């Protein structure tokens, strides 16, 4: 009934999704190239790329910076509008967000493709890319801030019309996700605007790589929660509806997301356990906080599985596990997300190893790390986003999903592929195989017999993931151009057994309080360290182009 009012924003939501998935397509293609590199096959020269590392920069930037930010910037406004039954508050906001992202992506892509910015998505100085590369990434982040502001003003306007009522759950989660991201993104904003841009433009000659890393990882871990929380939104509030179940407790879901708001950001040093410039005490403190942020994911594991169980039992499932087989496995929207959740279980558990202060030394910067995050971001997030597209694209276009069998193939090939890939990478990592390395031309490969099988598993798993990805894009293209049947699809919204009115207002209504607490926690986690470090900062590194 609100379709007409939403049309203005929906147009740009569609374009933003198009941009995000185009980025994913190219990113996945580079993923295939990287996998095959492990078998000594070099495809880079055939497509005009200079090196494995140029391809890796494309893979990382497009998959984890562009795809994720664009998808969230489309999906969460879509959810907010339907959940609040009103269009976005800023009239041209969706358009501004899209064009900022588009210009940003084009600038960054141009400077990656001309090989002037082969610095990978982490762009650690003193590797020095082209200033327009950094500016492009800044615009992508600014686009996400516009989306944040738009969601904030939309929820505020709703509250004025509904005094005293708690925000509908899905809008609440969308808002929390962006508040968390806004606080977290200030780290990389400071890094790029204060440290990197003036230095890459030649205004400042030298920079401090250790300081830059600290600001990068201030954003660099919470960004994974920015990717993950929309998947959680789907698992918590949509998937139960899609399997015929119910949310257990609305207030508990809100508590989980408040915990993510509080704990996602002050954990960055766990990426720097082996950095020489960070005292051990700070590393231990961030280790404790990282363990804490694992906790809301544990609650999620329980709550989401319980809400699925309700659906499975309603469909006639008996016994301890019998309900699992009664879930609608024939529905690609469901299968993608169930497999994504399964992958995330393994990803989350392996993440505890990286988080563990000194155990991390066994795996730091080895292939174990991409093994871990292809289970989390590569599967939990990406496969869930694909599953969401299986209802969102019909909802946006009014066309029935085309190629259901292909969509199911997407889910299983991806899942099987990532299991083999990650097993290979993790096994290699434990044998000291480094990450982000042009393996086919590595001069020490001859001494490393224990890497043979891990390398082959990486290649085979990567190729299967690629096939799964191509099945997804075939379904998207097929639905857009070959689907003849009309479909009327609405956003799924599951009911809660225990409604928001049962929770304490402090948890269901007072996001302002929690935002302040989150900011204070970030300040406690970083300011004393920074004050101390800046007294002895080492601005000694000049820019290098060594590729």
């Amino acid at each position, binding site marked *: 009934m609100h379709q007409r009012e939403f049309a203005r924003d929906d147009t740009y939501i569609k374009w933003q999704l198009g941009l995000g998935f185009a980025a994913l397509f190219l990113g996945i293609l580079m993923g295939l190239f990287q996998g095959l590199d492990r078998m000594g096959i070099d495809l880079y020269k055939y497509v005009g790329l200079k*090196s494995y590392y140029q391809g*890796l920069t494309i893979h990382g930037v497009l998959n984890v910076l562009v795809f994720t930010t664009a998808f969230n910037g489309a999906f969460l406004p879509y959810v907010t509008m339907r959940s609040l039954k009103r269009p976005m508050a800023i009239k041209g906001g969706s358009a501004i967000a899209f064009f900022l992202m588009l210009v940003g992506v084009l600038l960054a892509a141009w400077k990656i493709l001309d090989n002037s910015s082969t610095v990978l998505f982490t762009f*650690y100085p*003193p*590797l020095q890319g082209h200033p327009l590369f950094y500016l492009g990434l800044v615009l992508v982040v600014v686009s996400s801030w516009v989306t944040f502001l738009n969601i904030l003003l939309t929820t505020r306007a709703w509250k004025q019309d509904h005094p005293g009522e708690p925000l509908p759950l899905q809008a609440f989660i969308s808002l929390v996700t962006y508040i968390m991201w806004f606080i977290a993104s200030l780290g990389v904003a400071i890094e790029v605007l204060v440290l990197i841009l003036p230095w890459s433009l030649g205004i400042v000659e030298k920079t*401090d*790589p*250790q300081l830059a*890393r600290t600001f990068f990882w201030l954003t660099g871990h919470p960004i994974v929660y920015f990717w993950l929380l929309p998947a959680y939104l789907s698992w918590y509030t949509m998937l139960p509806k899609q399997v015929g179940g119910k949310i*257990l*407790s609305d*207030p*508990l879901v809100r508590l989980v997301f408040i915990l993510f708001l509080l704990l996602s950001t002050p954990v960055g040093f766990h990426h*720097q*356990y*082996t*950095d*020489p*410039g960070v*005292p*051990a005490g700070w*590393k231990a403190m961030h280790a*404790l906080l990282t*363990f*804490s942020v*694992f*906790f809301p994911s*544990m*609650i999620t594991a*329980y709550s989401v599985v*319980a809400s699925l169980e309700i659906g499975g039992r309603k469909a006639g499932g008996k016994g301890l596990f019998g309900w699992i087989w009664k879930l609608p496995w024939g529905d690609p929207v469901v299968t993608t997300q169930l497999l994504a959740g399964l992958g995330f279980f393994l990803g989350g558990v392996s993440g505890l190893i990286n988080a*563990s202060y*000194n*155990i*991390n*030394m*066994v795996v*730091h*910067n*080895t292939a174990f790390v991409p093994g871990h995050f292809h289970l989390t971001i590569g599967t939990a997030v990406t496969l869930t986003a694909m599953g969401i597209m299986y209802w969102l694209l019909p909802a946006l276009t009014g066309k029935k999903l085309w190629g259901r069998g292909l969509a199911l193939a997407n889910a299983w090939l991806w899942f099987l592929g990532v299991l083999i890939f990650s097993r290979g990478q993790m096994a290699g990592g434990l044998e*000291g195989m*480094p*990450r*982000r390395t042009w393996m086919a*031309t*590595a*001069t020490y490969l001859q*001494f*490393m017999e224990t890497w043979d099988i891990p390398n082959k598993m990486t290649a085979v798993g990567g190729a299967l993931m690629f096939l799964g990805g191509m099945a997804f894009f075939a379904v998207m293209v097929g639905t857009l151009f070959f689907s003849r049947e009309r479909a009327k699809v609405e956003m799924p919204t599951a009911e809660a057994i*225990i409604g928001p009115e*049962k*929770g304490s207002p402090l*948890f269901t209504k007072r996001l302002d309080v929690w935002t302040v607490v989150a900011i204070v926690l970030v300040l406690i986690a970083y300011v004393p360290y920074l004050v101390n470090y800046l007294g*002895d900062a*080492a601005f*000694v*590194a000049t820019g*290098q182009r*060594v*590729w």
Partner: protein
Amino acid sequence: MPIERSERLFINLSILMLVIFFIAVLVSAFIGGLQVPAPAGTIDPAAINQTAPFDNPGVRELVPGKRYEVVMIAQTWAFIPGEIRVPAGSEVTFRITSRDVIHGFEITGKNANVMLIPGQISLVKVKFDKPGEHYIICHEYCGIGHQTMYAKIIVEPAPQAAK
């Protein structure tokens, strides 16, 4: 907050599990002594050749057959020195810095892992018990030759006299 009984049980078990894990990690770190790298001083990368001890990279014998120090420079795309010989049973302290970009330092088969960041000095202690070969591999992308950057550690059988 209304929480059902099995849910409360799961939440409590989760907290308990994380507390136990975290205590185990802290015990191994602060009682077992398996510590992460900590600050070991700063240096100007442009002045490495004039700054002791990096003006003279190489292996130094502190206690013959027992304790050694290796002063090492990482640069695109080599570790200097590129080959190190120490006897089995020796404890080796690596003192390393980078001349140009960020490099990585890990020793295959050992829990030695540290970032090499321009401006910072990194310190790693490793014990080599058995004769054999290990490789030091650069694990941080450092440019087009990153995959060629490694060094070799040859652990020689301990001389009889040292036993």
